[in-house]
């Protein structure tokens, strides 16, 4: 069986982290209606490569160390995939603001909560919390 089927998909991990970060932010700031943050792909790569050292669930994002910066093709593809599927969007004109679309909540509640077990969801919640601290909320 292809190995890819045994582990959680990188897209799903990223979608879960972003949705949980959104929920934590909305808990802290109930007046907000959406979750958007400033980030470009390089920052995401940096944040996730650091988080990976502490959280095994992020091993799905394999980082190459051959160049000046850590780089995970899987993370870059996951961002593309979530954008293509409409779970996240980016704002014009500089595209540095990433925001979650309403469909991300449905995906998390209907699909991801059944895919990840309790301990994985706990890990993802911690990751989301650290992630939220690292990014600048828009």
């Amino acid at each position, binding site marked *: 069986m292809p*190995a890819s089927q045994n582990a959680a998909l990188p897209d799903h991990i990223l979608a879960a982290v972003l949705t949980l970060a959104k929920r934590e932010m909305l808990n802290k700031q109930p007046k907000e209606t959406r979750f958007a943050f400033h980030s*470009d*792909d390089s920052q995401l790569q940096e944040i996730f490569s650091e988080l990976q050292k502490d959280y095994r669930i992020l091993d799905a994002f394999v980082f*190459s160390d051959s160049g*000046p910066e850590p*780089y995970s093709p899987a993370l870059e593809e996951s961002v593309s995939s979530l954008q293509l599927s409409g779970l996240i969007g980016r704002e014009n004109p500089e595209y540095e603001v990433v925001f979650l679309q309403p*469909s991300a909540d449905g995906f998390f509640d209907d699909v991801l909560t059944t895919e990840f077990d309790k301990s994985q969801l706990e890990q993802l919640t911690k990751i989301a919390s650290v992630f939220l601290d690292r990014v600048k909320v828009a």
Partner: protein
Amino acid sequence: MAVSPAPPSLEERVDTFVQWLFEDFKPVPPTGPKVFNDALLGHLLFAKHEVAVIDCPVLQRLRRIKQTGLVYYVFPSATHSRFEHSLGAAALSERCYDAIRERAKVEETTFPGDDADLLHLRMAALLHDVGHGLCSHASEQIYKQLSNLQEFKNDKYKANQEGEVLSYLIVTSPTFQKWFEEYVVRGCQVKLDLKVVSDLILGRHGEKDKYFLAKIVSGPFDCDKLDYIARDSYYCGLALTVDLPRFYSMISTERYKDYTDLALRSYVPVEQILFGKMNLFGSVYHHQKVKCVGSMLRSVIGHIAQNPEQAKFPVRGGRHVSFTDPVEYLYATDDEFFSQAGGFGDEYTKNMLSRFRNRNLFVRCLEISRRTVTNWQHYGRQKLIDLTVLPEKLLDLENKIHASLPPADRAKSNRDDVRLSVPGIPPLSGEALIRTYRGASAEKIKKYFPVSEWIQSYAHNKWRSYVYAPREVAPAVRDAAISVLLEYSGLKIDANMSNQTCHL
């Protein structure tokens, strides 16, 4: 109790393949350099030691693999091979290197390369695609679905694509290294280190000062992309312009975080390359009929992999392969595979090869896109995209669609006749560097030009998924697919809208 020997490792299996390639090869030492007349790039000069490599079976095998796989079923001129692309990439690697050296000379800055670097660069570009198998990228998609790729997750090449890893393993195989040492290094009296060459293929270099060489072979704007964008558009008859001289006039090296990297002086050439690439994806690689023949190839290969005893593919020397391992795809080339009129004794394979021979292709039954899905904002799109990396789920859905057909239609078709094609997104990174004026520091090109968003925007409007089947069962497959996909993803597909493009 006897201990059974461990199964051969990926490295050993690749070496066995290289041994097989060299089995009946009698090297004839080249007499000197050679000029190749390339339709796209003109006269390409190769040194004596490069001719030795070009003449060896590792490179000659690429003559029998089409650069664009099965695209020629739609664009009849696209019969160019991986071989000519490899020659082109080698030539373009030198043009890039020369452009950087020339700029450094004019600007009186230090150029971090030397003649030995150029030799290694050209050799890496020449060998970068030797890991391609049957129908190029079309079969890559298939072995990703049918094989366990865990062995490709080695620390050394964990972030590389499987095709690059296979090229690396062929070049580092003991058999190739031995031949290379004897006939190239000693035979042609040239100092070449295959370790440096193979690292460049993976986009690596042991010295930070020479990292730019790795980027010329494998990076956001490498010689591979520059050649294939220009070559594929030329042979497909698309009037796309890739202004290579302009591109090279704007490239230089730049220090970035202790590494000497490549940097462009303007994003204008990037726009041109992106436009070319997106046009190729929209018009060629993701053309609905190209996806259709790719899906049909998956039917044949999948059938062989599932029935290895009755349908195994015969190769030279009495061997057979059943396409369960990515290395097995190296044994088969396009010419050899499609010339098997007898279908290796298997009825389904025979019928499918007859379909390919007579261009009796499956047809589109259903289009899944923003124009045919009425609840496009639903997260079901993500579940559909997941199928690009969940091959068993994809197969399960295809089987469900077939099982849902009315009995009369089910009897007229095979389970492997229903194909759901879900394209991924064209890859192109915005991580390349730009330096806007002399003295400025290097920055990521996406600060000036939103590379990935540009692709996203284009892809969002162009992205389409299709269900294919033989014409005689197409309406029934369409109806079954609408129900099965609604249940799986929640996406509501309007049959009438879909019919407008599928002509059912």
